[in-house]
């Protein structure tokens, strides 16, 4: 059992405040991912949880106990560093056993625990090697092994995959998901890679400028982003934003007029917008389909063919650039004119302040935990 709460947590370096009041609750066995652009404070927040950075104000509570002033090792956490931070002068086995050695665990027991962790991570044959004799992926596994051996209440990962090449990263990502299930542990994971966040997380916490923009399940963030920042950050290629004006507001939604003159009736909760309001219409590239005729039209400027799918970078009449995700087989060429049909059900609406106007219908997958969505699929 391990739950973790952050209550009004702040961090300042002198006059500079980098974490500006974070409230967050992480459940037992939850895989929580902190994601955000560089400098958003996600690593600092993780290091504060670890005890490597002091908490300026607010409470950090683990299993109901306030641990602000508890030294790192006594918080029952283990951390995997981006640089792996293995002890270069020790063998793999000694690296993994270091915490047990400090805790005064007898040698035989130490060996048994190391062998057990090595088995889980397929490191059995490397136990006598030094870190410099290992590949990047193997070093990463040793770093994880060092964490496992301690049987921590919470695992902390600080961008653990960013030093690996693309193929290895995918492999380790799957490995981590498997480990999370096998160890049934609470994990907090920092990354700037939204694919890692989407695939691993039960809960994603999007941070920007030291505040939490939104916390929720991956599909909740995808289908119900709270503001323009989250809408643009989650999803790849990022969501298209088009300026629009509200023409009419009814019970079933709002009719908005785009710069090009077309009108779209977006199903949003009533009462939030009034006719005449300037709003932003958001729609994801994967929800746009080229058609004979449609609400918007423009000239294709760049065609990116990925094989299975094709991205069409299209300039609209008013100069706005949008991305359309089309089929891999589509014959469209540069400078061709295409039209796009909007499906109102996939459109998002944001008010003048950039906050999302609540959608009329909650997406059925938005409130289901990752493990359950996988089982359903």
């Amino acid at each position, binding site marked *: 059992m391990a739950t973790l709460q952050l209550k009004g947590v702040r961090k300042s370096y002198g006059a500079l405040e980098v974490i500006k009041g974070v409230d967050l609750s992480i459940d037992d066995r939850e895989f929580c991912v902190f994601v955000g652009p560089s400098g958003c404070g996600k690593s600092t927040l993780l290091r504060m949880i*670890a*005890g*490597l950075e002091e908490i300026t104000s607010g409470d950090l509570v683990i299993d109901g106990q306030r641990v602000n002033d508890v*030294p*790192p*090792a*006594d918080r029952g*956490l*283990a*951390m995997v*560093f*981006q*640089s792996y*931070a*293995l*002890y*270069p*002068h020790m063998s793999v086995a000694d690296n993994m056993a*270091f*915490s047990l050695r*400090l*805790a005064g665990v007898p040698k035989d027991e130490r060996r048994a625990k190391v062998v057990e962790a090595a088995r889980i991570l397929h490191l059995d044959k490397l136990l006598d090697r030094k870190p410099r004799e290992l590949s990047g992926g193997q070093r990463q596994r040793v770093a994880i092994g*060092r964490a496992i051996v*301690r049987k921590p209440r919470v695992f902390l990962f600080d961008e653990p995959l960013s030093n690996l090449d693309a193929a290895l990263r995918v492999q380790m990502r799957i490995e981590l998901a498997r480990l999370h299930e096998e160890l049934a542990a609470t994990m907090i994971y920092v990354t700037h890679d939204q694919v890692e966040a989407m695939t691993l997380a039960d809960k994603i916490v999007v941070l920007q400028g030291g505040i939490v923009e939104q916390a929720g399940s991956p599909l909740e963030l995808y289908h119900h982003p709270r503001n323009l920042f989250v809408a643009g950050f989650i999803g790849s290629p990022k969501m298209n934003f088009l300026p629009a004006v509200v023409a009419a507001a009814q019970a079933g939604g709002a009719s908005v007029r785009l710069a090009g003159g077309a009108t779209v009736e977006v199903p949003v909760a009533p009462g939030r917008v009034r006719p005449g309001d300037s709003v932003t219409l958001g729609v994801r590239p994967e929800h746009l389909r080229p058609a004979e005729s449609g609400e918007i039209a423009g000239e294709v400027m760049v065609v990116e063919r990925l094989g299975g799918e094709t991205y069409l970078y299209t300039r609209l009449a008013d100069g706005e650039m949008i991305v359309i995700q089309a089929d891999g087989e589509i014959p469209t060429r540069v400078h061709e004119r295409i039209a796009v049909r909007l499906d109102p059900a996939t459109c998002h609406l944001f008010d003048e302040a950039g906050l999302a106007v609540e959608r009329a219908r909650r997406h059925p997958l938005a409130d289901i935990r990752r493990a359950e969505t996988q089982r359903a699929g």
Partner: protein
Amino acid sequence: MNPGIRERLVLTAVGWIAAGLIFFPVFWMVLTSFKTEVEAVQTPPSLFFTPTLENYAAVRERADYVHFATNSVVISLGATLLALVVAVPAAYAMAFFPGKRTKDLLLWMLSTKMMPAVGVLIPVYLLFRDFGAIDSRWGLIVVYTLMNLPIVIWMLYTFFKEVPKDILEAGRMDGARPRQEVWLLLMPLSLPGIASTALLSIILCWNEAFWSLNLTTSAAAPLTTFIASFSAPEGLFWAKLSAASTVAIAPILVFGWMSQRQLVRGLTFGAVK
């Protein structure tokens, strides 16, 4: 001629001249130690002569070399060890937990080396008198430690800076207390740096003459005092003085020669990053 080659030739020549200038006095000293007193003061000096060992015999007869050498060894090693015991934690704190004034503090420590030692001779002498430290090994160990501390801390600081912070933090997560962090992680990782720092400190202690001449007479006198004792009031005996100097520097010369690589690495560290 290719300008690149010419430049290299000039630099090589300058290097050899500098090396020759530094080496010549040592060479001349060793040469003189094998001459008779008459030959030693001859003008023009003779480069070819019949070597004699009589100076070494005379030096051996007049003073107990082993006594002075033992003092040198004990004091050099003692002062180096004490300096490391103080400097390792200091450099650790400065390298990994720097405050706003850490850089200033480091500079200030180094600036104390710019003050001439004679400036504090009287107060140090009075302190030594009151504490009964005159002509004692421990007194000299304390003075040498303080003398070398700034440079020892500076060197260790530079070496410690090279150790990735993550490794120590990983240790902290694994449950290492500061003492264990230093002893089990930091020191093994910067062992080459610590070794070259220790070597430099030993050499500086061994060659130190000002404080040893002023604060010791016989019981705790190191080899530098031993050399000085051959410049007698009744006149300088160049050949004997040279012989005494040669035997005094011989151990540290051999030591320095053996640890050459460590020393060069240590002294150029940080400068050539």
